[in-house]
């Protein structure tokens, strides 16, 4: 029988996400996929599985979940309060065993914007156009609802109770950008000012883009200037008519006519995604050569994630039923841990 995950309650911003789908840009469909791609890789490392499996992305708020059979889970991205109905609280950025029939309640974010619930074996819905991720802007899939039941893929019965110290990315910071198609239009003075001022993440933000309000004047181009609609991509910093920049995110449209002052490096986009309204950002322009070096390091960091796992140290006081915890699961971290480390 297929293992399933049931959503007894779904927060308003839950959707199925993976690393998105390539190859449909020419047909007007952007890649989409998880807002915080790094969180997908962290979940995969915690569960010792491939990063292309689908997980549940939770914007701002979680839900109440139950599995039909014992299932390994991992929690990554924006930390949320997570607890089982017996009172056991589950640490974020860690893997756990979710016993069949237990109710897992995930609350509101404590920092950041997007939390992720990963399952051993991944969510195994049918692929649509080569991926499982919901593309909300295109109507490809829909937000998850109360009562939804999702199939879970085959799991390899790996380890649980592993933890990972995530790369800090919840509170804004400096974003590295490279030139984009209209960077020169803004002129050296404005480009320098763009790197001097501080921006505040606006309340207007979603999976398509994040609005950043500059301290002081906007960055509008001189009146009458416009650009012929051209391709746009995640990371591009579009400056709208009133001079306010938007950083485009995974579900952005595929063409746009607003000028772009730069493009945020892919490895910095999780920070854009995770910032809450009010978070402060600044930009710094790097050369393509520097960008290649930074992205190479980021790719190496992803490969090293499994080596950074460590055993989850549990506080016995937080465990209501210590005995059943070890017996029910039949999974101990012992040998698997040795393998993982």
């Amino acid at each position: 029988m297929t293992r399933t995950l049931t959503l007894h309650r779904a927060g308003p911003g839950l959707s199925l996400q993976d690393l998105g789908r390539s190859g449909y840009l020419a047909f007007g469909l952007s890649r989409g996929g998880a807002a915080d791609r790094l969180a997908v890789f962290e979940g995969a490392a915690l569960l010792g599985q491939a990063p292309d499996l689908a997980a549940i992305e939770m914007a701002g708020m979680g839900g109440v979940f139950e599995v039909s059979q014992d299932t390994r889970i991992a929690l990554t991205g924006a930390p949320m309060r997570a607890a089982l109905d017996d009172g056991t609280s589950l640490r974020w950025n860690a893997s756990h065993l979710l016993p069949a029939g237990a109710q897992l309640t995930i609350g509101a974010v404590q920092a950041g914007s997007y939390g992720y619930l990963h399952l051993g074996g991944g969510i195994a819905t049918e692929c649509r156009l080569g991926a499982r991720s919901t593309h909300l802007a295109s109507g490809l899939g829909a937000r998850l609802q109360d009562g939804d039941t999702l199939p879970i893929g085959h799991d390899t019965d790996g380890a649980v109770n592993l933890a990972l110290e995530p790369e800090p990315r919840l509170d804004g910071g400096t974003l590295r950008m490279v030139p984009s198609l209209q960077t020169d239009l803004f002129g050296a003075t404005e480009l320098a000012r763009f790197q001097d001022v501080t921006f505040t993440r606006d309340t207007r933000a979603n999976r398509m883009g994040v609005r950043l309000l500059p301290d002081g004047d906007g960055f509008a181009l001189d009146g009458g200037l416009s650009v012929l609609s051209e391709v746009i991509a995640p990371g591009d910093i579009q400056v709208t008519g009133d001079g306010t920049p938007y950083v485009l995110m995974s579900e952005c449209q595929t063409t746009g006519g607003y000028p772009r002052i730069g493009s945020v490096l892919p490895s910095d986009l999780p920070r854009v995604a995770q910032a809450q309204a009010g978070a402060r950002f600044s930009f710094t322009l790097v050369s393509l050569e520097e960008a290649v070096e930074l992205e190479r390091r980021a790719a190496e960091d992803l490969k090293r994630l499994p080596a950074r796992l460590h055993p989850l140290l549990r506080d016995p006081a937080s465990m209501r039923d210590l005995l059943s915890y070890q017996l029910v699961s039949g999974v101990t971290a012992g040998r698997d841990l040795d393998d993982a480390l």
Partner: protein
Amino acid sequence: MASHIRHLGLVFRLDRWQSYGMTNAQPTSPPQGQTSDWPQVATAGFDGLVVRFADTLSEPANRAALAFRVAVERAGWSAVQETSTSLVSTYLRFDPLGTAHAEMMQQVKTLLASRDWYDAALPEGRKLWRVPTVFGTDLAPQLAEAAERAGLTVEEAVRQIAETQLRVQTIGFAPGQPYLGELPPAFDIPRQTDLTPQVPEGAVVVAIRQIVLFSVTTPTGWRHTGQTRFRLFRPDAPEPFVLRPGDEVRFEPISPETYAALERDGPDGGATCEVLS
């Protein structure tokens, strides 16, 4: 390696863009054939390259962009992850960790130099779609406004749109959504300054001698002049995207009653197609 791969900045004047009319006559920019200025290659963000064939819309540049994308796909370069076209440009997304920017740029320039892209034929296997369309009524409330802007009576505006065989210049913005050109000169009307908050899927919207046929429900600054039941994005169908660049489209007027009856017609909404030879 840096100097010759600096991005290029281009200035486009709104008035120039809006007054430009793509015609079948010889365009003024660019001239037929490659000049010293065009095409241009620029990096776009960390992992993109854009090949621009002109700075304004013209049919040769549109054909060049489409043909160059096909050529890049055929070349099968391992670093290229995805390609697309806009009105007059081709985009490549590639992996700069596998192939350096300068190397990718050189490959693109070599391919560009291999022929006159402005001379390229339209894509093969093009189709002509006839799409039943309600003009005006409460289904498309901005017909009168668009006609007035065009200086035409409502009847004349509908006649001109219906009699123009439009071509898909590009697919973009939303999945399967075509930019169709071009309408007669009277329709060189600007986008409205305010956005209409919600215009439904299947809407025929007009601005700057172009029509966009909406594949999703979306806010827009284009005027809503017609409504169809033609679904352009069908994620679970064998052909999820119905239209291709180069396809041609005619919007054929129907009554609201016929439109209502077409609800039972499925995703084509009464649209028919034939292969163009």
